[in-house]
Protein backbone atom coordinates (compact mmCIF):
# COMPACT_ATOMS: atom_id res chain seq x y z
CA UNK A 1 0.00 0.00 0.00
CA UNK A 2 1.15 3.56 -0.66
CA UNK A 3 2.20 6.05 1.98
CA UNK A 4 0.65 9.50 2.40
CA UNK A 5 2.90 12.45 3.14
CA UNK A 6 1.35 15.61 4.61
CA UNK A 7 2.99 18.59 2.92
CA UNK A 8 3.86 21.65 4.98
CA UNK A 9 3.72 24.95 3.15
CA UNK A 10 2.71 28.61 3.43
CA UNK A 11 0.21 28.48 0.52
CA UNK A 12 2.92 29.80 -1.84
CA UNK A 13 5.98 27.68 -1.15
CA UNK A 14 6.69 24.33 0.40
CA UNK A 15 8.33 24.49 3.78
CA UNK A 16 11.79 22.90 3.53
CA UNK A 17 11.16 20.00 5.95
CA UNK A 18 8.56 18.59 3.54
CA UNK A 19 11.57 17.45 1.47
CA UNK A 20 13.12 15.63 4.44
CA UNK A 21 9.79 13.99 5.26
CA UNK A 22 9.47 12.86 1.61
CA UNK A 23 12.81 11.05 1.94
CA UNK A 24 11.67 9.30 5.12
CA UNK A 25 8.34 8.35 3.51
CA UNK A 26 10.13 6.85 0.50
CA UNK A 27 12.18 4.63 2.81
CA UNK A 28 8.92 3.05 4.03
CA UNK A 29 7.43 2.57 0.57
CA UNK A 30 8.51 4.03 -2.76
CA UNK A 31 4.92 4.82 -3.76
CA UNK A 32 4.71 8.16 -1.95
CA UNK A 33 1.63 10.32 -2.43
CA UNK A 34 1.47 13.79 -0.91
CA UNK A 35 -1.53 15.76 0.28
CA UNK A 36 -1.46 19.54 0.33
CA UNK A 37 -4.23 21.32 2.19
CA UNK A 38 -4.47 25.09 1.94
CA UNK A 39 -6.07 28.13 0.39
CA UNK A 40 -5.02 29.22 -3.11
CA UNK A 41 -1.99 26.99 -2.76
CA UNK A 42 -1.55 26.08 -6.44
CA UNK A 43 2.07 27.22 -6.60
CA UNK A 44 3.03 25.12 -3.60
CA UNK A 45 1.12 22.14 -5.04
CA UNK A 46 3.09 22.50 -8.28
CA UNK A 47 6.39 22.56 -6.36
CA UNK A 48 5.25 19.44 -4.52
CA UNK A 49 4.50 17.64 -7.79
CA UNK A 50 8.06 18.37 -8.93
CA UNK A 51 9.76 16.61 -6.00
CA UNK A 52 11.52 13.58 -7.42
CA UNK A 53 10.07 11.14 -4.86
CA UNK A 54 6.37 12.08 -5.14
CA UNK A 55 4.18 9.90 -7.37
CA UNK A 56 0.88 11.71 -6.90
CA UNK A 57 -0.31 14.98 -5.34
CA UNK A 58 -3.73 15.47 -3.78
CA UNK A 59 -4.72 19.11 -3.45
CA UNK A 60 -7.49 20.19 -1.09
CA UNK A 61 -8.44 23.86 -1.01
CA UNK A 62 -10.84 26.02 0.97
CA UNK A 63 -10.62 29.44 2.67
CA UNK A 64 -10.71 27.79 6.10
CA UNK A 65 -7.48 25.92 5.29
CA UNK A 66 -5.50 29.15 4.93
CA UNK A 67 -4.03 29.01 8.44
CA UNK A 68 -3.37 25.30 8.94
CA UNK A 69 -5.75 24.78 11.88
CA UNK A 70 -5.37 21.11 12.91
CA UNK A 71 -9.08 20.75 13.68
CA UNK A 72 -9.80 21.53 10.01
CA UNK A 73 -6.96 19.46 8.56
CA UNK A 74 -7.37 16.20 10.50
CA UNK A 75 -10.75 15.10 9.02
CA UNK A 76 -9.46 15.62 5.45
CA UNK A 77 -6.54 13.28 6.06
CA UNK A 78 -8.63 10.75 7.99
CA UNK A 79 -10.93 10.57 4.97
CA UNK A 80 -8.02 10.04 2.56
CA UNK A 81 -6.28 7.52 4.84
CA UNK A 82 -8.40 4.59 3.63
CA UNK A 83 -6.04 4.03 0.71
CA UNK A 84 -2.79 4.28 2.65
CA UNK A 85 -0.74 2.13 5.01
CA UNK A 86 1.17 5.03 6.58
CA UNK A 87 0.55 8.74 7.20
CA UNK A 88 3.79 10.73 7.47
CA UNK A 89 4.67 14.28 8.51
CA UNK A 90 7.56 16.19 10.06
CA UNK A 91 7.85 16.25 13.84
CA UNK A 92 8.00 20.04 13.94
CA UNK A 93 5.27 22.18 15.51
CA UNK A 94 3.07 21.68 12.41
CA UNK A 95 3.19 17.88 12.50
CA UNK A 96 3.20 17.63 16.30
CA UNK A 97 0.02 19.67 16.46
CA UNK A 98 -1.75 17.76 13.70
CA UNK A 99 -0.73 14.09 13.61
CA UNK A 100 -2.07 12.93 17.03
CA UNK A 101 -5.49 14.27 16.06
CA UNK A 102 -5.41 12.04 12.99
CA UNK A 103 -4.02 9.05 14.88
CA UNK A 104 -6.69 9.22 17.60
CA UNK A 105 -9.44 9.43 14.98
CA UNK A 106 -7.98 6.33 13.30
CA UNK A 107 -7.52 4.57 16.66
CA UNK A 108 -3.80 4.22 15.94
CA UNK A 109 -0.93 4.54 18.38
CA UNK A 110 1.27 7.20 16.81
CA UNK A 111 5.06 6.86 16.56
CA UNK A 112 6.64 10.28 17.11
CA UNK A 113 9.89 11.80 15.96
CA UNK A 114 11.61 8.83 14.32
CA UNK A 115 15.27 9.17 13.35
CA UNK A 116 15.51 5.99 11.28
CA UNK A 117 13.27 3.67 9.27
CA UNK A 118 14.26 0.08 10.13
CA UNK A 119 11.43 -1.54 8.16
CA UNK A 120 7.89 -0.57 7.25
CA UNK A 121 6.67 -1.31 10.79
CA UNK A 122 9.83 -0.75 12.85
CA UNK A 123 11.48 2.56 13.61
CA UNK A 124 14.19 4.10 15.78
CA UNK A 125 13.30 7.09 17.94
CA UNK A 126 14.98 9.09 20.71
CA UNK A 127 13.44 9.05 24.20
CA UNK A 128 14.46 10.92 27.36
CA UNK A 129 15.69 13.91 25.34
CA UNK A 130 17.95 11.73 23.24
CA UNK A 131 19.62 10.09 26.24
CA UNK A 132 18.33 6.75 24.97
CA UNK A 133 17.10 5.39 21.65
CA UNK A 134 14.18 2.97 21.39
CA UNK A 135 13.51 0.57 18.55
CA UNK A 136 9.73 0.33 18.27
CA UNK A 137 7.50 -1.93 16.23
CA UNK A 138 3.95 -0.88 15.44
CA UNK A 139 1.21 -3.50 15.53
CA UNK A 140 -1.48 -1.14 14.18
CA UNK A 141 -2.80 -1.73 10.66
CA UNK A 142 -2.48 1.91 9.78
CA UNK A 143 0.59 3.71 11.01
CA UNK A 144 0.89 7.40 11.87
CA UNK A 145 4.54 8.44 11.98
CA UNK A 146 6.23 11.80 12.49
CA UNK A 147 9.85 12.08 11.43
CA UNK A 148 12.71 14.13 12.84
CA UNK A 149 13.54 16.27 9.80
CA UNK A 150 17.22 16.69 10.57
CA UNK A 151 17.73 12.92 10.58
CA UNK A 152 16.75 12.56 6.90
CA UNK A 153 18.32 14.32 3.91
CA UNK A 154 16.02 16.51 1.84
CA UNK A 155 14.96 14.91 -1.47
CA UNK A 156 15.65 16.54 -4.85
CA UNK A 157 13.27 19.43 -5.45
CA UNK A 158 13.10 18.78 -9.18
CA UNK A 159 12.90 15.83 -11.53
CA UNK A 160 9.38 14.75 -10.62
CA UNK A 161 6.17 15.35 -12.54
CA UNK A 162 3.45 13.84 -10.39
CA UNK A 163 -0.17 14.34 -11.44
CA UNK A 164 -2.16 16.73 -9.25
CA UNK A 165 -5.62 15.54 -8.26
CA UNK A 166 -8.12 17.72 -6.47
CA UNK A 167 -10.10 16.36 -3.53
CA UNK A 168 -13.18 17.79 -1.90
CA UNK A 169 -12.81 20.09 1.10
CA UNK A 170 -14.38 19.26 4.45
CA UNK A 171 -16.45 21.44 6.73
CA UNK A 172 -14.99 24.20 8.88
CA UNK A 173 -14.45 23.51 12.60
CA UNK A 174 -15.98 26.72 13.98
CA UNK A 175 -14.93 26.31 17.62
CA UNK A 176 -11.36 27.32 16.74
CA UNK A 177 -10.56 30.68 15.17
CA UNK A 178 -7.18 31.72 13.84
CA UNK A 179 -6.32 35.28 14.87
CA UNK A 180 -2.75 36.05 13.86
CA UNK A 181 0.72 34.74 13.27
CA UNK A 182 3.81 36.76 14.14
CA UNK A 183 6.63 35.34 12.08
CA UNK A 184 10.08 36.43 12.99
CA UNK A 185 11.58 37.64 9.72
CA UNK A 186 15.28 37.43 9.26
CA UNK A 187 17.88 37.56 6.49
CA UNK A 188 19.78 34.83 8.25
CA UNK A 189 19.63 31.13 7.43
CA UNK A 190 16.84 29.34 9.30
CA UNK A 191 17.92 27.80 12.60
CA UNK A 192 16.64 24.35 11.66
CA UNK A 193 18.56 24.15 8.39
CA UNK A 194 21.60 26.45 8.81
CA UNK A 195 25.10 25.10 8.06
CA UNK A 196 26.53 26.99 11.03
CA UNK A 197 24.80 27.88 14.31
CA UNK A 198 26.18 30.24 16.96
CA UNK A 199 24.36 29.96 20.29
CA UNK A 200 24.52 31.99 23.47
CA UNK A 201 23.58 31.00 26.98
CA UNK A 202 23.14 32.55 30.40
CA UNK A 203 26.83 33.45 30.31
CA UNK A 204 25.97 36.27 27.88
CA UNK A 205 24.60 38.13 30.95
CA UNK A 206 22.29 40.44 28.96
CA UNK A 207 20.32 40.80 25.76
CA UNK A 208 22.61 43.62 24.74
CA UNK A 209 25.65 41.33 24.91
CA UNK A 210 24.00 39.06 22.33
CA UNK A 211 25.40 41.59 19.81
CA UNK A 212 28.67 39.67 20.17
CA UNK A 213 26.87 36.51 19.04
CA UNK A 214 25.21 38.41 16.19
CA UNK A 215 28.53 39.76 14.87
CA UNK A 216 30.08 36.31 14.90
CA UNK A 217 27.00 34.84 13.20
CA UNK A 218 27.14 37.58 10.53
CA UNK A 219 30.73 36.71 9.78
CA UNK A 220 30.00 32.97 9.47
CA UNK A 221 26.61 33.35 7.77
CA UNK A 222 25.20 31.46 10.73
CA UNK A 223 21.82 31.15 12.40
CA UNK A 224 21.55 32.32 16.00
CA UNK A 225 20.61 29.86 18.72
CA UNK A 226 20.18 30.10 22.46
CA UNK A 227 19.83 27.94 25.54
CA UNK A 228 16.59 27.87 27.47
CA UNK A 229 18.30 29.79 30.28
CA UNK A 230 19.06 32.67 27.90
CA UNK A 231 15.49 32.66 26.58
CA UNK A 232 13.96 32.49 30.06
CA UNK A 233 16.20 35.36 31.18
CA UNK A 234 14.72 37.40 28.32
CA UNK A 235 18.02 37.90 26.45
CA UNK A 236 16.51 36.62 23.19
CA UNK A 237 13.16 35.44 21.81
CA UNK A 238 12.03 31.83 22.14
CA UNK A 239 12.17 30.99 18.43
CA UNK A 240 15.96 30.79 18.90
CA UNK A 241 15.80 28.09 21.56
CA UNK A 242 17.76 24.91 20.90
CA UNK A 243 16.98 21.83 22.99
CA UNK A 244 14.46 19.22 24.06
CA UNK A 245 11.62 21.73 24.16
CA UNK A 246 13.03 23.99 21.45
CA UNK A 247 14.52 23.11 18.10
CA UNK A 248 16.77 20.21 17.25
CA UNK A 249 19.64 21.34 15.04
CA UNK A 250 22.31 19.34 13.20
CA UNK A 251 24.61 21.91 11.58
CA UNK A 252 28.13 21.26 10.27
CA UNK A 253 29.40 23.64 12.95
CA UNK A 254 27.76 24.48 16.29
CA UNK A 255 29.40 27.11 18.47
CA UNK A 256 28.12 27.18 22.05
CA UNK A 257 29.09 30.36 23.90
CA UNK A 258 28.49 30.75 27.63
CA UNK A 259 26.29 27.64 27.64
CA UNK A 260 26.88 25.19 30.49
CA UNK A 261 25.30 22.27 28.62
CA UNK A 262 22.20 21.14 30.51
CA UNK A 263 20.84 17.77 29.35
CA UNK A 264 17.88 19.53 27.72
CA UNK A 265 20.20 21.71 25.63
CA UNK A 266 22.51 18.87 24.60
CA UNK A 267 19.43 17.00 23.33
CA UNK A 268 18.98 19.70 20.70
CA UNK A 269 22.51 19.99 19.33
CA UNK A 270 24.76 17.05 20.16
CA UNK A 271 24.31 15.44 16.74
CA UNK A 272 26.02 18.46 15.13
CA UNK A 273 29.06 17.49 13.05
CA UNK A 274 31.56 19.76 14.79
CA UNK A 275 30.88 21.33 18.18
CA UNK A 276 32.84 24.23 19.67
CA UNK A 277 32.35 25.26 23.30
CA UNK A 278 33.55 28.53 24.76
CA UNK A 279 33.04 28.74 28.50
CA UNK A 280 35.06 30.04 31.41
CA UNK A 281 34.04 27.09 33.60
CA UNK A 282 36.36 24.25 32.56
CA UNK A 283 34.07 21.74 34.30
CA UNK A 284 30.94 22.71 32.33
CA UNK A 285 29.20 19.63 30.84
CA UNK A 286 29.19 21.25 27.39
CA UNK A 287 32.90 20.34 27.09
CA UNK A 288 32.01 16.63 27.22
CA UNK A 289 30.36 16.88 23.79
CA UNK A 290 32.66 19.53 22.28
CA UNK A 291 35.20 18.63 19.59
CA UNK A 292 37.04 21.85 20.39
CA UNK A 293 36.75 23.38 23.82
CA UNK A 294 38.10 26.79 24.75
CA UNK A 295 38.17 27.64 28.42
CA UNK A 296 38.03 31.42 28.30
CA UNK A 297 36.06 34.53 29.19
CA UNK A 298 33.64 34.92 26.30
CA UNK A 299 33.85 38.72 26.45
CA UNK A 300 37.53 38.44 25.51
CA UNK A 301 37.23 35.38 23.28
CA UNK A 302 34.42 36.60 20.98
CA UNK A 303 36.13 39.83 19.83
CA UNK A 304 39.33 37.80 19.24
CA UNK A 305 37.32 35.22 17.30
CA UNK A 306 36.10 37.97 14.96
CA UNK A 307 39.63 39.33 14.58
CA UNK A 308 41.00 35.89 13.69
CA UNK A 309 38.19 35.34 11.17
CA UNK A 310 38.99 38.71 9.59
CA UNK A 311 42.54 37.48 9.01
CA UNK A 312 41.30 34.56 6.91
CA UNK A 313 41.23 34.99 3.15
CA UNK A 314 38.04 33.03 2.69
CA UNK A 315 35.21 31.83 4.88
CA UNK A 316 32.83 29.11 3.69
CA UNK A 317 29.28 30.30 3.20
Amino acid at each position, binding site marked *: MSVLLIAEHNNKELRPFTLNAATAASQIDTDVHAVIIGHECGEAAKALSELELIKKVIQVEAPHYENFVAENFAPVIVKLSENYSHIISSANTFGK*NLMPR*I*AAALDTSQISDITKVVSNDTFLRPIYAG*NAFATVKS*KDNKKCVTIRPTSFDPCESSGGSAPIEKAEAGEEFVQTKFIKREEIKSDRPELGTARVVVSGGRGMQSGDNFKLITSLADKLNAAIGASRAAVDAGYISNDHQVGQTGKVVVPDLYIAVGISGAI*QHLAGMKESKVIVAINKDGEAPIFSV*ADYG*LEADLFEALPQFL*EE*LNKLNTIQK
Partner: protein
Amino acid sequence: MKILVAVKRVIDYNVQIRVKEDNTGVVTDNVKMSTNPPDDNAIEEAVKIKEAGKATEVIAVSIGEEKAQETVRKALAVGADRGILVKTEGILEPLAVSKLLQKIVEKEKPDLVFMGKQAIDDDCNQTGQMLSALLNWPQATFASKIEIKDKSLEVTREIDEGLETIEINVPAIVTCDLRLNEPRYASLPNIMKAKKKPIEQINASDLGVDTTPRIEQTRVEEPPKRKAGIKVSSVAELVQKLKNEAKVI
Protein backbone atom coordinates in the same frame (compact mmCIF):
# COMPACT_ATOMS: atom_id res chain seq x y z
CA MET B 1 -15.42 27.31 35.10
CA LYS B 2 -14.00 23.98 36.13
CA ILE B 3 -10.45 23.01 35.12
CA LEU B 4 -9.08 19.48 34.97
CA VAL B 5 -5.28 19.25 34.90
CA ALA B 6 -3.49 16.06 33.90
CA VAL B 7 -0.11 15.45 35.56
CA LYS B 8 2.40 12.69 34.87
CA ARG B 9 5.04 11.17 37.14
CA VAL B 10 8.37 10.94 35.31
CA ILE B 11 12.06 10.54 36.07
CA ASP B 12 13.27 13.89 37.43
CA TYR B 13 14.70 16.10 34.71
CA ASN B 14 18.03 16.42 36.53
CA VAL B 15 18.66 12.68 36.64
CA GLN B 16 21.21 11.28 34.20
CA ILE B 17 19.32 8.56 32.31
CA ARG B 18 20.91 5.10 32.28
CA VAL B 19 19.94 2.33 29.88
CA LYS B 20 19.43 -1.13 31.42
CA GLU B 21 22.16 -3.62 30.64
CA ASP B 22 19.69 -6.01 29.01
CA ASN B 23 18.47 -3.19 26.70
CA THR B 24 14.84 -3.55 27.79
CA GLY B 25 14.42 0.02 28.98
CA VAL B 26 15.96 2.64 31.24
CA VAL B 27 16.80 2.24 34.92
CA THR B 28 13.93 3.47 37.13
CA ASP B 29 14.70 1.68 40.41
CA ASN B 30 15.88 4.06 43.14
CA VAL B 31 15.71 6.98 40.74
CA LYS B 32 14.23 10.32 41.78
CA MET B 33 10.78 10.87 40.27
CA SER B 34 8.99 14.22 39.83
CA THR B 35 6.12 15.86 38.04
CA ASN B 36 6.68 16.22 34.30
CA PRO B 37 7.97 19.85 34.11
CA PRO B 38 5.39 21.39 31.71
CA ASP B 39 2.62 19.73 33.79
CA ASP B 40 3.78 22.00 36.63
CA ASN B 41 3.10 24.94 34.31
CA ALA B 42 -0.36 23.53 33.58
CA ILE B 43 -1.22 23.32 37.29
CA GLU B 44 0.21 26.77 37.95
CA GLU B 45 -1.90 28.31 35.18
CA ALA B 46 -5.09 26.64 36.40
CA VAL B 47 -4.46 27.80 39.98
CA LYS B 48 -3.73 31.35 38.77
CA ILE B 49 -6.99 31.40 36.83
CA LYS B 50 -8.85 30.27 39.95
CA GLU B 51 -7.10 32.90 42.07
CA ALA B 52 -8.19 35.53 39.57
CA GLY B 53 -11.77 34.46 40.23
CA LYS B 54 -12.28 32.99 36.77
CA ALA B 55 -12.43 29.33 37.75
CA THR B 56 -14.35 27.61 40.52
CA GLU B 57 -12.46 24.36 40.88
CA VAL B 58 -9.12 22.83 39.87
CA ILE B 59 -8.93 19.03 39.76
CA ALA B 60 -5.59 17.25 39.31
CA VAL B 61 -5.62 13.81 37.69
CA SER B 62 -2.77 11.37 37.21
CA ILE B 63 -2.74 7.97 35.58
CA GLY B 64 -0.22 5.37 36.66
CA GLU B 65 0.92 3.17 39.48
CA GLU B 66 0.06 3.78 43.15
CA LYS B 67 3.07 6.07 43.60
CA ALA B 68 1.62 8.55 41.09
CA GLN B 69 -0.43 9.64 44.09
CA GLU B 70 2.63 11.71 45.14
CA THR B 71 2.35 13.63 41.87
CA VAL B 72 -1.33 14.35 42.52
CA ARG B 73 -0.49 15.33 46.10
CA LYS B 74 2.10 17.82 44.85
CA ALA B 75 -0.51 19.42 42.59
CA LEU B 76 -2.82 19.72 45.62
CA ALA B 77 0.00 21.37 47.57
CA VAL B 78 0.31 24.16 45.00
CA GLY B 79 -3.39 24.86 44.89
CA ALA B 80 -5.48 22.18 43.17
CA ASP B 81 -8.69 21.51 45.13
CA ARG B 82 -8.95 17.75 44.80
CA GLY B 83 -7.29 14.86 43.04
CA ILE B 84 -8.02 11.75 41.04
CA LEU B 85 -5.65 8.82 40.61
CA VAL B 86 -6.42 6.33 37.86
CA LYS B 87 -4.47 3.23 38.85
CA THR B 88 -2.82 1.10 36.16
CA GLU B 89 0.18 -1.17 35.83
CA GLY B 90 2.56 -1.46 32.92
CA ILE B 91 3.19 0.67 29.88
CA LEU B 92 0.50 3.09 28.76
CA GLU B 93 0.70 4.69 25.35
CA PRO B 94 -0.63 8.22 24.83
CA LEU B 95 -3.63 6.81 22.94
CA ALA B 96 -4.62 4.74 26.00
CA VAL B 97 -3.99 7.70 28.33
CA SER B 98 -6.21 9.93 26.23
CA LYS B 99 -8.99 7.33 26.24
CA LEU B 100 -8.80 7.08 30.05
CA LEU B 101 -8.80 10.87 30.33
CA GLN B 102 -11.83 10.97 28.07
CA LYS B 103 -13.69 8.83 30.63
CA ILE B 104 -12.65 11.19 33.43
CA VAL B 105 -13.77 14.19 31.37
CA GLU B 106 -17.17 12.56 30.74
CA LYS B 107 -17.53 12.01 34.49
CA GLU B 108 -16.24 15.39 35.74
CA LYS B 109 -17.48 17.58 32.85
CA PRO B 110 -14.73 20.22 33.10
CA ASP B 111 -14.78 23.31 30.87
CA LEU B 112 -11.06 23.16 30.32
CA VAL B 113 -8.43 20.43 30.36
CA PHE B 114 -4.81 21.54 30.79
CA MET B 115 -1.66 19.44 30.58
CA GLY B 116 2.01 19.80 29.62
CA LYS B 117 2.77 19.84 25.92
CA GLN B 118 5.06 16.84 26.14
CA ALA B 119 6.27 14.34 28.71
CA ILE B 120 10.03 14.31 29.12
CA ASP B 121 10.24 10.50 29.36
CA ASP B 122 8.72 9.18 26.12
CA ASP B 123 8.83 12.63 24.41
CA CYS B 124 5.69 11.68 22.44
CA ASN B 125 3.82 15.01 22.41
CA GLN B 126 0.46 13.38 21.64
CA THR B 127 -1.92 13.08 24.60
CA GLY B 128 -3.55 16.54 24.55
CA GLN B 129 -4.17 16.48 20.81
CA MET B 130 -5.53 12.91 20.99
CA LEU B 131 -7.90 13.75 23.84
CA SER B 132 -9.06 16.78 21.91
CA ALA B 133 -9.77 14.60 18.85
CA LEU B 134 -11.65 11.99 20.90
CA LEU B 135 -13.84 14.69 22.47
CA ASN B 136 -14.05 16.71 19.24
CA TRP B 137 -13.02 19.78 21.25
CA PRO B 138 -10.76 22.61 20.06
CA GLN B 139 -7.09 22.35 20.95
CA ALA B 140 -4.47 24.97 21.73
CA THR B 141 -1.08 23.29 21.84
CA PHE B 142 2.27 24.71 23.03
CA ALA B 143 0.55 27.60 24.86
CA SER B 144 2.77 30.39 26.15
CA LYS B 145 -0.06 32.83 27.03
CA ILE B 146 -3.69 32.26 27.96
CA GLU B 147 -6.33 34.95 28.21
CA ILE B 148 -9.70 33.90 29.59
CA LYS B 149 -12.70 35.48 27.92
CA ASP B 150 -16.39 34.91 28.50
CA LYS B 151 -16.96 31.61 26.71
CA SER B 152 -13.60 31.32 25.03
CA LEU B 153 -9.84 31.58 25.47
CA GLU B 154 -7.33 33.54 23.49
CA VAL B 155 -4.15 31.50 23.39
CA THR B 156 -0.70 32.39 22.09
CA ARG B 157 1.09 29.32 20.75
CA GLU B 158 4.81 28.78 20.29
CA ILE B 159 5.36 27.60 16.73
CA ASP B 160 8.54 27.10 14.70
CA GLU B 161 8.07 30.35 12.77
CA GLY B 162 7.39 32.46 15.87
CA LEU B 163 4.05 32.98 17.63
CA GLU B 164 0.49 32.21 16.66
CA THR B 165 -2.67 33.45 18.36
CA ILE B 166 -5.94 31.54 18.20
CA GLU B 167 -9.31 31.82 19.91
CA ILE B 168 -10.95 28.61 21.07
CA ASN B 169 -14.41 28.17 22.50
CA VAL B 170 -14.85 26.21 25.73
CA PRO B 171 -14.88 23.31 26.38
CA ALA B 172 -11.30 23.03 25.15
CA ILE B 173 -7.90 21.43 25.64
CA VAL B 174 -4.73 23.44 26.24
CA THR B 175 -1.23 21.94 26.26
CA CYS B 176 1.24 24.14 28.09
CA ASP B 177 4.71 25.29 27.17
CA LEU B 178 7.40 25.90 29.78
CA ARG B 179 7.25 29.63 29.08
CA LEU B 180 3.60 29.94 30.09
CA ASN B 181 4.43 30.90 33.68
CA GLU B 182 6.80 30.34 36.59
CA PRO B 183 5.50 27.44 38.71
CA ARG B 184 5.42 28.22 42.43
CA TYR B 185 6.93 26.11 45.17
CA ALA B 186 4.63 24.52 47.70
CA SER B 187 4.93 26.12 51.14
CA LEU B 188 5.12 23.86 54.19
CA PRO B 189 1.65 24.86 55.49
CA ASN B 190 0.20 24.15 52.05
CA ILE B 191 1.92 20.75 51.91
CA MET B 192 0.29 19.96 55.27
CA LYS B 193 -3.09 21.20 54.06
CA ALA B 194 -2.77 19.13 50.88
CA LYS B 195 -2.63 15.99 52.99
CA LYS B 196 -6.24 16.59 53.95
CA LYS B 197 -7.48 17.19 50.41
CA PRO B 198 -9.32 14.23 48.88
CA ILE B 199 -7.82 11.97 46.21
CA GLU B 200 -10.33 9.66 44.55
CA GLN B 201 -8.84 6.36 43.43
CA ILE B 202 -10.20 4.67 40.34
CA ASN B 203 -9.03 1.42 38.77
CA ALA B 204 -8.33 1.90 35.09
CA SER B 205 -9.82 -1.55 34.48
CA ASP B 206 -13.19 -0.23 35.75
CA LEU B 207 -13.31 2.45 33.04
CA GLY B 208 -13.91 0.02 30.19
CA VAL B 209 -10.95 1.11 28.06
CA ASP B 210 -8.68 -1.28 26.20
CA THR B 211 -5.18 -0.09 27.11
CA THR B 212 -3.23 -2.93 25.50
CA PRO B 213 -0.05 -1.49 23.95
CA ARG B 214 -0.06 -1.29 20.14
CA ILE B 215 3.65 -0.65 19.97
CA GLU B 216 6.29 -3.14 20.94
CA GLN B 217 9.52 -1.64 22.25
CA THR B 218 12.03 -4.21 21.03
CA ARG B 219 15.25 -2.58 22.22
CA VAL B 220 16.49 0.46 24.11
CA GLU B 221 20.08 1.53 23.68
CA GLU B 222 22.50 4.28 24.59
CA PRO B 223 22.90 7.09 22.09
CA PRO B 224 26.05 6.85 19.97
CA LYS B 225 28.91 8.37 21.95
CA ARG B 226 30.78 11.33 20.59
CA LYS B 227 34.48 10.76 20.46
CA ALA B 228 36.35 12.84 22.97
CA GLY B 229 37.33 16.28 21.79
CA ILE B 230 40.29 18.43 22.70
CA LYS B 231 40.81 21.67 24.58
CA VAL B 232 42.46 24.45 22.64
CA SER B 233 44.56 27.06 24.37
CA SER B 234 43.68 30.14 22.35
CA VAL B 235 41.19 31.59 19.91
CA ALA B 236 43.89 31.60 17.21
CA GLU B 237 44.40 27.86 17.67
CA LEU B 238 40.63 27.29 17.58
CA VAL B 239 40.23 29.13 14.28
CA GLN B 240 43.21 27.26 12.79
CA LYS B 241 41.68 23.92 13.82
CA LEU B 242 38.27 24.83 12.40
CA LYS B 243 39.84 25.95 9.15
CA ASN B 244 42.49 23.29 8.56
CA GLU B 245 41.49 20.24 10.61
CA ALA B 246 37.68 20.24 10.74
CA LYS B 247 37.41 22.27 7.52
CA VAL B 248 34.12 23.85 8.51
CA ILE B 249 34.90 27.55 8.06
